[in-house]
């Protein structure tokens, strides 16, 4: 019985320290030192409206924008997660083939052999904000044709929004699609 009594009192004490003190201390320092990041890295357009988060991908389907990765939840950031297909699942092949035929219709100038695999596969979160530099490069001819922005200018924008490996070593280089498209939108006007 004594054990249960001690447990109840100790539980309460630990709860105060670990739940209230710990969470609030992290929260207070975070909000004071890095409020933008602590609130979700939201980004605004030139007019000052919040258009999304730097870290969360959006659905882009118009040919005048760079497209992100396949998302089986259609970039619904209120409930991440994605129905997964195992490598042997026939549905996976079917979905990839659909992505490829859509690609061929939109980008007649770029052969399939140049399309990197990240463009036809579902990301882990369904919210991947980035694509590989190669995946951005192969979309340049299409975006240039639709928007009238020169290919060189688009390549410069891609370079501006390519995040290298952390510390030059960890992770892979990647292009932030939303930031890139904000530049595209601004240059179009």
């Amino acid at each position, binding site marked *: 019985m004594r054990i249960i009594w001690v447990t109840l009192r100790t*539980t309460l004490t630990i709860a105060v320290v670990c739940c209230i003190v710990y969470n609030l201390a992290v929260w207070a320092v975070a909000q004071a030192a890095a409020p933008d*990041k602590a609130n979700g890295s939201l980004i605004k357009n030139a007019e000052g409206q919040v258009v999304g988060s730097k870290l969360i991908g959006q659905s882009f389907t118009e040919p005048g924008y760079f497209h992100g990765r396949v998302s089986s939840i259609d970039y619904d950031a209120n409930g991440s997660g994605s129905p*997964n297909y*195992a*490598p042997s699942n026939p549905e996976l092949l079917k979905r990839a083939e659909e992505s*490829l035929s859509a690609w061929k219709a939109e980008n007649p100038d770029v052969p399939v052999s140049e399309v990197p695999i990240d463009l036809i596969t579902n990301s882990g979160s369904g919210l991947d904000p980035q694509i590989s530099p190669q995946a951005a490069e192969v979309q340049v001819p299409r975006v240039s044709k639709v928007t009238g922005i020169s290919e060189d200018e688009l390549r410069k924008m891609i370079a501006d929004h390519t995040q290298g490996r952390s510390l030059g070593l*960890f992770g892979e280089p990647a292009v932030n699609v939303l930031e890139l498209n904000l530049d595209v939108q601004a240059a179009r006007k």
Partner: protein
Amino acid sequence: MTTLSIIAILVTLLIVVALAKPVGLYLAAAFDYGSGSRLNRVFGPVERLIYRIGGIREENQSWKTYAASLICSNAVMIFLIYLVLRFQGMLPLNPAGIPNMEPSLAFNTAISFMANTDLQHYSGESGASYLSQASVLVFAMFVSPATGLALVMAFIRGLTGKGAGNFFVDLIRALTRVLLPVAFVSALLFVFMGVPQTFEPAATVTTLEGAQQTIARGPIASFLAIKELGNNGGGFLGVNSAHPFENPSGLSNLLQILLMMLVTTALPFAYGKMAGSIKQGRVLFVSMLVILIVMTGISLTAESAGNPVLNALGVQHAQGSMEGKEVRFGETQSAFYSVITTAAETGAVNTMHDTLTPIGGLVPLANMMLNTVFGGMGVGFVNVLMYAIIAVFLSGLMVGRTPEFLGRKIEGKEMKLIAVTLLIQPFLILVPTAIALATHPETISNPGFHGLTQALYEYTSSAANNGSGFEGLSDANTFWNVSTGIVMFLGRYLSMVTLLAVAGSLAAKKPIPESSGTFRTDTAMFGAVFVGIVLIVGALTFFPAVVLGPIAEQLTL
């Protein structure tokens, strides 16, 4: 797979190795009951205050009382967590208006977090309120690794002939001296890397193409830090560390890997220190590191080869298999993370394990089945020591001598308890898998051999208290909630009791002086026997199931 990405993995492993010994020595000092320690002067005042409020007496417990305190306290806490989850809808701090958890899901979740498993049959965004996440789940994520640390310290004390100590004192020391300070600092580092820490509700924005997007957020950084450090693994958000908010960059990915490995790789050295010879711990550390490196190699090779079915479409596939992976990690950091999270029994994921190539998915499965490649906070190393005792016992049988471990005779009583412990795990994995396949085939989403792997993975993850999932499984229903809940509970607490009994029995024995005939446990020879025993026991137990699942799938691709 580029040269640079291989170097990144080697550098990560080097940091892990460099940290292990100093952290191990710190742990040994932190749990030393001697009064002279400088740590007692630093932490003593705060701890004595907590003892006074909690009514904890700083006295040594018997082995039975120690085990009883552990089980009773954890059971009471599970019940309290269950209550909060059941009534979260009516409690404050719930801006999204999330309803109460239904009973079987609350049962599963309460056990899951207290048993250091963090298998999640709900999605954080829609299934748990800010109060549930920031209070009860964070509470469990601190207390369950602290319980694991207390267990391993008591177990080592037994092997080295000391008394058990006091469970509540160990529990509080684990919190004040290890978990809270490290979690606090790393939570802040995560914020600077872009992880949110806010109590604001989800943000609603209008996207560039004019659609509405609701972006879930919350106090994620504080949750994330203890999730990784405590080998918990439960995600604040549904997709865990694949979510850009829960793992924004290559750097945050590195910090997560280091946190997962921090304590569990240090424990062999803490053990060596407490046993009076660092070499005793080092041989176990090196043996496990060798298995880890082999596992990493297999996984990287499989994932960078990609999926032959998709590669056949003629696309550019230098990136390897990218289904279920994030671009910022690529195939190498994703595969590496899957190896680490199952070696350290954390269960956090930065890639969807269900989508791994068959052999790439076999590696995490094998890590969890062996449950000795470092393993989870505390319990993993206790398991390792159990295998070390088995290795000594079998070697003793081969040369016809009474086996000894750290100068204490291993006899019938200990081996019976260990044999029971060994049998618990396959029983908890294989029997429920068979039942699930026979009675609930409709919950399995992938056809063919992969379906078997899905069910097998779920119970392996539950029994090993890992908590990662092959997420394709429709597991949010009463059958899966209750069955995995029971498996998680037994998988954690049964072996804790039997192994504490082994420790108690060994502690009571008179040490015998080492002679020229003693089988030494600090040599490379012993390391090789240890690795052999681990692999043979693992293979004998699980090979048939593994052949029917991932291996058959690979052959049919």
